[in-house]
C-alpha cells in the first residue's frame, strides 16, 4: 500500500510540476538556512569529551581583596597566579592534575632544510595527555624525573612530525625551539577537537598547540605567556622572578576527579588553603571563594556559544515557520482542487484514513525532496561561512547527526504542515462529486 501511495504521490508531483517545485524549493531553502545556523551551533555547543566531561574540572580561586571585582559573572578570575598553581599541584587528592599556560617558539632544525616557523606550545604537566584523552603515535609522555629535573623534552603533534620528519618515528631526535635543543619523547596522533575547552582564553575555536613541554621549564627558561595576564593591583615587576611571585593571573589549572568524595575532599583542600593564605596576610578576604566547574559548565560559563549564534538559530527556525506556512497554503489549494477525484475514490470504497495516509505520504515525499535539496543548500551556506570566517572552518561543517537530521526535520515539518490539508481532503463527501458530472 505504502509503495502505491508513493507512486500516487509521484504522479501528483508531476501533474502540477510548477507548484510542486515551488513547494520543494520553499522547504529546501527553509531547511538549508536552518541547518546552516544549526550546524554551527551544534558544533559550538557539542560536548568535546563526552566520556569524561563530568570528571574534568577547571579550578578557579579568588585571591583578591574583598570588594575587588572581576568581569566574570561571579567575580572569579579565569586563571590563577603561578604560586597558587604550584600550591594546588601539591595536592594528591585529584586522580590527575595539570597547571598549564600557552607559550610559543620559532621551530627550526639548525640547518637549511626547514625554513624556521613559529608554533604555539603548551607548557603543561605529564598528566595532560591522559586527562584529555590524547593518543600517542610514537613514544610517550616525559617521565616524572624529566619533569622534576626540568629537562628540555617535548611531545610534538602528528602534523608537526609530518612536517619535520616526513611522518617517521622521531622519538629521540632533536628539534630546536628558539635557540634551545629539545629532545622529542613522543608524538601524539592528530587531535581533532572543535572547541579548545582546556584553554578558552585565546579564542575558543583555535586549533590545539603542536608542541607540549614540561611546566617545570617555566622558572628555568623564563617562558613568556602567549595567553592573557591580568593583575588587580599595582605591583613593581622588574624581573621574571618578580612575575612568578606576583599576584598576576596567567596559569590555568585542571583536575580530573572521578568520584564525589574526592571532589568534596579537594574542595575542602582548596578551602583550607585559601583560609591559610588569607591568615598569612596575602589578601584580605573574609570567606574563601573558589569554584570547580566541569567541562560543560566551563564552556557555558565562558560563553563559548555567542549570542549572535543563538539569535541566528532562533531567526532561522522562524524562517522555517514562514516556509511551512507557505507550503501549507499551497497544499490546501492543491489538495482541494483534487476533491472530485477523491470523491470518486471514496465512493469506490477508500476509507477516510486511507485517503489521509495517502496525502501524508505525498507531503512526506515533498519533505524528503526538500530535505535532500536542503542539505545541498546548507553545504553552500556552510561554505560561505568558512569563506567569511576561517576561524570557524572546523565548526562550519555538518557531522552525521546534522546530516540525518536535515531530512528528518524536513519530513516532520512537512507532515505537520500537511496534516490540516490532508484532514480537509479526507472529509470530502463523495456524493457531491458524483452528482452533477
Amino acid at each position, binding site marked *: 500500500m505504502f509503495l502505491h501511495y508513493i507512486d500516487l504521490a509521484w504522479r501528483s508531483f508531476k501533474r502540477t510540476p510548477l507548484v510542486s517545485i515551488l513547494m520543494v524549493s520553499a522547504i529546501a531553502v527553509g531547511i538549508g538556512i536552518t541547518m546552516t545556523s544549526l550546524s554551527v551551533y551544534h558544533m559550538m555547543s557539542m560536548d568535546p569529551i563526552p566520556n569524561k566531561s563530568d570528571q574534568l574540572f577547571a579550578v578557579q580561586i579568588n585571591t583578591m581583596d574583598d570588594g575587588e571585582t572581576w568581569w566574570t559573572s561571579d567575580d572569579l578570575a579565569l586563571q590563577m597566579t603561578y604560586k597558587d598553581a604550584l600550591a594546588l599541584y601539591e595536592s594528591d587528592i585529584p586522580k590527575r592534575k595539570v597547571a598549564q599556560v600557552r607559550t610559543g617558539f620559532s621551530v627550526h632544525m639548525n640547518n637549511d632544510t626547514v625554513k624556521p616557523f613559529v608554533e604555539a606550545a603548551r607548557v603543561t604537566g605529564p598528566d595532560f595527555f591522559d586527562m584529555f584523552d590524547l593518543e600517542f603515535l610514537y613514544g610517550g609522555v616525559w617521565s616524572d624525573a624529566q619533569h622534576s629535573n626540568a629537562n628540555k623534552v617535548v611531545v610534538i603533534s602528528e602534523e608537526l612530525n609530518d612536517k619535520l620528519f616526513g611522518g617517521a618515528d622521531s622519538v629521540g631526535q632533536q628539534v630546536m625551539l628558539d*635557540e634551545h635543543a629539545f629532545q622529542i619523547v613522543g608524538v601524539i596522533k592528530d587531535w581533532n577537537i572543535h572547541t579548545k575547552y582546556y584553554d578558552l582564553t585565546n579564542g575558543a575555536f583555535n586549533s590545539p598547540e603542536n608542541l607540549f613541554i614540561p611546566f617545570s621549564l617555566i622558572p628555568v627558561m623564563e617562558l613568556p605567556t602567549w595567553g592573557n595576564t591580568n593583575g588587580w593591583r599595582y605591583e613593581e615587576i622588574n624581573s621574571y622572578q618578580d612575575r612568578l611571585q606576583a599576584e598576576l593571573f596567567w596559569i590555568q589549572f585542571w583536575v580530573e576527579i572521578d568520584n564525589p568524595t574526592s571532589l568534596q575532599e579537594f574542595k575542602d583542600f582548596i578551602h583550607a588553603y585559601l583560609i591559610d593564605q588569607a591568615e598569612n596576610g596575602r589578601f584580605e578576604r573574609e570567606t574563601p571563594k573558589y569554584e570547580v566547574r566541569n567541562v560543560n559548565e566551563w564552556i557555558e560559563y565562558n560563553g563559548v556559544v555567542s549570542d*549572535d549564534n543563538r539569535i541566528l538559530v532562533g531567526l532561522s527556525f522562524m524562517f522555517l515557520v514562514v516556509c511551512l506556512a507557505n507550503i501549507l*497554503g*499551497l497544499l490546501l489549494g492543491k489538495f482541494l*482542487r483534487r476533491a472530485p477525484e477523491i470523491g470518486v475514490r471514496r465512493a469506490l470504497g477508500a476509507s477516510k484514513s486511507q485517503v489521509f495516509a495517502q496525502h501524508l505520504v505525498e507531503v512526506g515525499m515533498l519533505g524528503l525532496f526538500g530535505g535532500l535539496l536542503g542539505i545541498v543548500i546548507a553545504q553552500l551556506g556552510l561554505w560561505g561561512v568558512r569563506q567569511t570566517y576561517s576561524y570557524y572552518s572546523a565548526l562550519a561543517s555538518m557531522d552525521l547527526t546534522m546530516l540525518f537530521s536535515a531530512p528528518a526535520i524536513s519530513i516532520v515539518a512537512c507532515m505537520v504542515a500537511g496534516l490540516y490539508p490532508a484532514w*480537509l481532503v479526507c472529509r470530502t463527501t463523495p456524493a457531491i462529486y458524483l452528482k452533477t*458530472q
Partner: protein
Amino acid sequence: MLEIKPIINALFRSKAGAMMLLVQIAVTVAIVSNATFIIQDRVAYLNQETGYPEEEVFSFSIMSFAEDTNLLEQAELDEQTLRNIPGVINAVNASEVPLSGSGSASSFFLVPNPDGERGVRAAYTMGDENIIDTLGVKIVAGRSFTADDVVVQEEGMDTVPSVGIASQAFLDEMFPEGDGIGKTLYFGPFPMQIVGVVDKMKGPWLKDSRADNLVIIPLVRSHTFQKMIVRTEPGQRASIMAQVEDLMLENSNERVIMRVRGMDESKQNYNAEDILMMRMLITLVVVLVSVTALGIFGLTVFNINKRTKQIGTRRALGARKSDIVRYFLVENALICTLGLIIGGVAAVYLGQTLLQHYEVPALDLTYVIITMLSVLVISLLSVLMPANKAANISPSIATRSI
C-alpha cells in the same frame, strides 16, 4: 466602492489559505524588521571612523631566535631598510598594533600610587618618535614626539619616558573639565606629561567599552618578539607587503617573519564574527522576502484558478477588467494589513525578547514601519501579475459547463 463586504464574505469561505498568508506576512515582518535593524547596527559598527588611514598601513611580527644579537640595533636597521623601500612613508617598531585585537591596557591616575582610587583605563602602545607619523594620526593640540623624548630600555624599568600622547576621548574622561594637554598623569608611580592630543585613534579592541582610549608612550624595549608598523603611499601597499619577508630575512635570517597584514585586514579578522552575522542576516532577509513573495504569488494563482468560473460570471454580468484586478488587490491588502499589524506587534515583542536575553540594542520602531510598508508593496506587486491574468478570463467561460 471597494466591495469590502463581499470580499470578506468570500474570505470566510476559505479561511485556511488566507490564514496561512496572514501568518507568513506576520512572521516575515517580525523577522525582517529585527534582522535589518541588527544588520544596520553591524554596518555602522564596521564602518566607524578609526582615525587611521587603514588602507595605507600594514604591520608584521618578527620572532627572533638568534643568540647574542643586539635586538635594538637590529630593529633600527630593519626600520631603516623598510624606509628605504620606494613608496614607504615611515616605519616603526611598536609594542602593539591598533585595531589588531591584541594589546595591553592599564589604568592611569591623577596621583602616584593611588590607594583604592579608580583610575581611567586606556590601551597603550610604545614606540620611538616615528610612531605618530607611521600611524598617520592627526595631532590636534600640542606636538609629536622628538628624539629627545624617547627612552631606550635594555632591562627592567630603570628609566621611563616622562611624556605621552593621548587620544582626545581618553583625556576627556581623565579631565572632564577639558583641556588635558600639559597635565601630568601617573602610570603606577611614574609621572607622564601629556604633550600631544590626537582627535581620534582607536585602541586595539574595537569592542572594548573604552575603545577610544589610547595612550602612546615613547619607549623602546628589547624583545625577541617584535611588531613593526609601516605606512606606505596609497596604492603601493600590496607590492611592498609582498617583499617585506625577504628583505627582513636578508637583514638577519635567524628569525621568523609572520602576520604580514594590512591594518584593514587585521580589523576584519578581529570583526570576522560580525561580518559573518551581517552576511547571514542579509541572506536570511533576501531569501525570506523572496519566499514570502513567491508564496503570495502561488496562493493568488490558486485562488484564481479556483474561481475561474465566478470571474467569468462577474465579467459576463458587466464587471470591468479593472474591477477584477481591484478585487484581488483589495482582498490581498485586507489580509496583508491584518498580517502587518500582527507582525508589527510581534516584531516589537521579538525585539524586546532579544534585548532581554542578548547584547543587542533596542529595536528602533522606524525599522518596523519601513518593513511593514515594504512588505505591503511587495505583497501587492506579487498579486498584480496573477490578478491581471485573471482579468483576461473571457466572460464566455461562464456560459460553458466544465
